[in-house]
């Protein structure tokens, strides 16, 4: 098993994969310090990372949802019951009060990196 972790800016970034490994508008699951994270690349090349756990169904499936948009918001829909989440904030756009955690993610030297320890949801 290969888990790459680098420490930088006081943040430990975990490399999850090479950027081209991400298909546009599709997610992958990654293990970041024992947490399951869903990483997405949108059509315009941006990266997003949210918790892999669907908070409503309780199953770890978010990376397998359909990526799209609602208004301005880039979104992913839970593959189980189709609730839609804003990839930027983690907020569920269909059920008030429900959210998934959001992680920091970046592309460096062609590698996609995620910072463990999610930000409080709601900040973008």
């Amino acid at each position: 098993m290969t888990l790459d972790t680098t420490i930088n800016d006081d943040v430990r970034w975990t490399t999850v994969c090479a950027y081209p490994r991400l298909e546009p508008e599709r997610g992958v699951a990654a293990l970041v310090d024992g947490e399951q994270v869903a990483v997405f690349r949108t059509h315009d090349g941006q990266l997003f990372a949210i918790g892999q756990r669907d908070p409503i169904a309780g199953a770890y499936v978010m990376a397998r949802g359909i990526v799209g948009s609602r208004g301005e918001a880039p979104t992913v829909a839970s593959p189980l019951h189709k609730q839609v989440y804003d990839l930027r904030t983690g907020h569920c756009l269909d059920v008030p009060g429900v959210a998934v955690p959001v992680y920091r993610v970046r592309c460096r030297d062609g590698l996609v990196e995620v910072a463990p320890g999610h930000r409080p949801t709601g900040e973008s």
Partner: protein
Amino acid sequence: MNERTSQRGELVVVGNGMVGQRFVEALRSRDGGGRWRVTVLAEESRAAYDRVRLSAFFDGVSAEELSLHQPDDGVDLRLGEPVVAIDRERRRVRTGAGEYPYDALVLATGSYPFVPPIDGAYVDAGPDAIGPTPALRPGVFVYRTLDDLTAIRDFAKGRRNGAVVGGGLLGLEAANALRLLGLGTHVVEFAPRLMPVQVDEAGGAMLRRYVEELDVVPHLGVATTAIRSRPDGELAGLTLSDGSWLPTDLVVVAAGIRPRDELARDAGLTLGERGGVRVDAGCRSSDERIWAIGECAAVEGTCYGLVAPGYAMAEVVADRLVGGTAAFPGADLSTKLKLLGVDVAAFGDAHGTTPGCLDVTFTDPATRVYAKLVLSDDARTLLGGVLVGDVTAYPALRASVGGPLPGPPLALLAPAGDGTGTGSGIAALPGSAQVCSCNGVTKDQLVDAIAEGCVDVPGLKACTRAGTSCGSCVPMLKQLLAVSGVSLSKALCEHFAHSRQELFEIIRVREIRTFSRLVAEHGTGRGCDICKPAVASILASLGNGYVLDGEQASLQDTNDHFLANIQRDGTYSVVPRIPGGEITPEKLIVIGEVARDFQLYTKITGGQRIDLFGARVEQLPQIWRRLVDAGFESGHAYGKALRTIKSCVGSTWCRYGVQDSVGLAIALELRYRGLRAPHKIKSAVSGCARECAEARSKDFGIIATDNGWNLYLGGNGGFRPRHAELFGTDLSTEDLVRYVDRFLMFYIRTADRLQRTAAWIEALEGGLEHLRAVIVDDSLGLCAELDAAMARHVGAYSDEWRDTLEDPDRLSRFISFVNAPDVPDPSITFEVERGQPVPAMGERRPVTLGLPTTMGVPS
């Protein structure tokens, strides 16, 4: 009998026909305080059913579907217990089982079919005093009850010719029934034209041309004088009044009806001059405790042979019994029917009997449309009319009777084609005009219902009852919704203003191959879980190859994306194809071994195959490898696609089977496997009419006959179960496959997203008839295209599991974690239940959909 001394009144209803049933419902809804205890005594062994739609029985509609009965209506319903006498003095009615006291008695006994005293029609010499229905000789039938129809169907088996005595409304319905039963059909009518009561001479002539085209032979202007038997007792034929001889194996007499007033007569109640229980405008008979409603009542001397006036009487009596003063308003005798595939409507003063009235007629031999309007002498008021061939104008015209014309006469009569031609009609109607005459619903009531939030036809039906009986006003309901500004958006989602069908056409005609191009040129944003799978399905239907290549992958729902069915814990289930449900022991063993080795929960599905549950994403390719090596392929259980074609063992094994149902099911399943569609498609093939494969609950169901196959379309189980409707009989295998090909391709092209075939057919303008025109008669000139599309599908089919296994790039998607492909998802754990693994709930909480307030933000 028990004497009851409660505060409640005893109400006894005699007859549980259409009107008796409506009366009980009307009383129940008015008598909230439970003032009346209701007993219904019924002669027939079945609870009330829709007699108006009786003939649908021969189109395969079951007795249950025709039922009008509401099981929990709090009424003591005694079936098969006819009343034999009324004792007015003691206020009791008597049945074979006992006596029932009443405080109020409602007669709803309907009519009996009138059989003229034709020599040889009865078991004995002639009609004697055995009551309204003396015993008819075998082979002679009437057409009134479900039992009558069952008897006709059973008798017709193996016979070739049938004749109907009577060329009126009922006679033509019976003639169509005989046709559907495969008999050569003759109609004998005494009047010089068909449907003499409803249409005039020119309308009758048009009707005759339609009828003859269907190989129904009319014999007009002649009476039936005798029914003759062969020496062996079988029916030989009819002697007609012009001396001619008409050979036939079966006779249906539809020569009119007579009110069933025998109970009232014996009890000494006043009858109408031409029979029927004489009642006043409040439907009360000469005995103040006895009421009569429906066809057995002669309201102020007149009997009505239609259901709408009967319903009005039912409402009147229900109102009176709770202290109201309602009165029978007089009746609208308009009729609209589809007889032998011809639309016919007559309304108001159809025969122009009003002094000084004017006729405006319109005849088009090319389209075979005939229409006549009867106007008042100043040509301003519509009095009545007749329509044959095209009745789109009927609802608006009927509602305008007695008022100004809703438009210039010719514009009203000329075929509108799309049904919107009379759109000005509804707006021009006064608010008091009855839009639904069966249930007496006015335009004002409908407008109010729309104002209160009804947005569609089902909504209007539910809150006003309009359109729930004969359905002829449904086009008017649609117009009313449209002019009231209620328009349901057909937009698929926020990203496309188009319907699925429009998108299909855009993609097909512009040869669009990617979602990106489609959404850039025709939509907004980046799509969502609604439009993306819909577009993926369209692209797949149009033959764009492997569903996970290139951009298509990002469009697929998780099921299509992983070629398996996601389950509540995020694992998947795997269903290999088992065509027709036939499987060798060797293959069965392989499935067992795979399930054992991967520890999969195993269950037999309703579609005659085996579902293996609990596979993790990274296990899927390994499971497929084992299955594909053993000769299995994907069963597409995950796709909006053809699922299974069930079969019974058929003629190979079953002693009743008449065709090889398994062989056909396998051939069809292999032909249509992998076909992507707006929704899942299911099918089944039964080897004989016993229907062990439950084919009629499928999108397309096939039932073997002695001569070929019967094809049924548009059935489904699920939330709103529905039986498929008979589309074709005794089809050769070749024709069957051709029709199914076209049916599927036309459905794929034109249905809405997630619209099953039943709803799709329902929504087609013209329904099943239209579908038949398109795929049998090629009315849209589409058949060649549909055939080519299916040929392409069959030629291009390739197993998605095998395609995935053969390509390392494709396989790379099937991993748990992109940075730790060897680590299985730690959240997936199992417990054992009845010896098999099932999801352990552990950290996962149950789904509490619909209760958002109980869900917190996870920390």
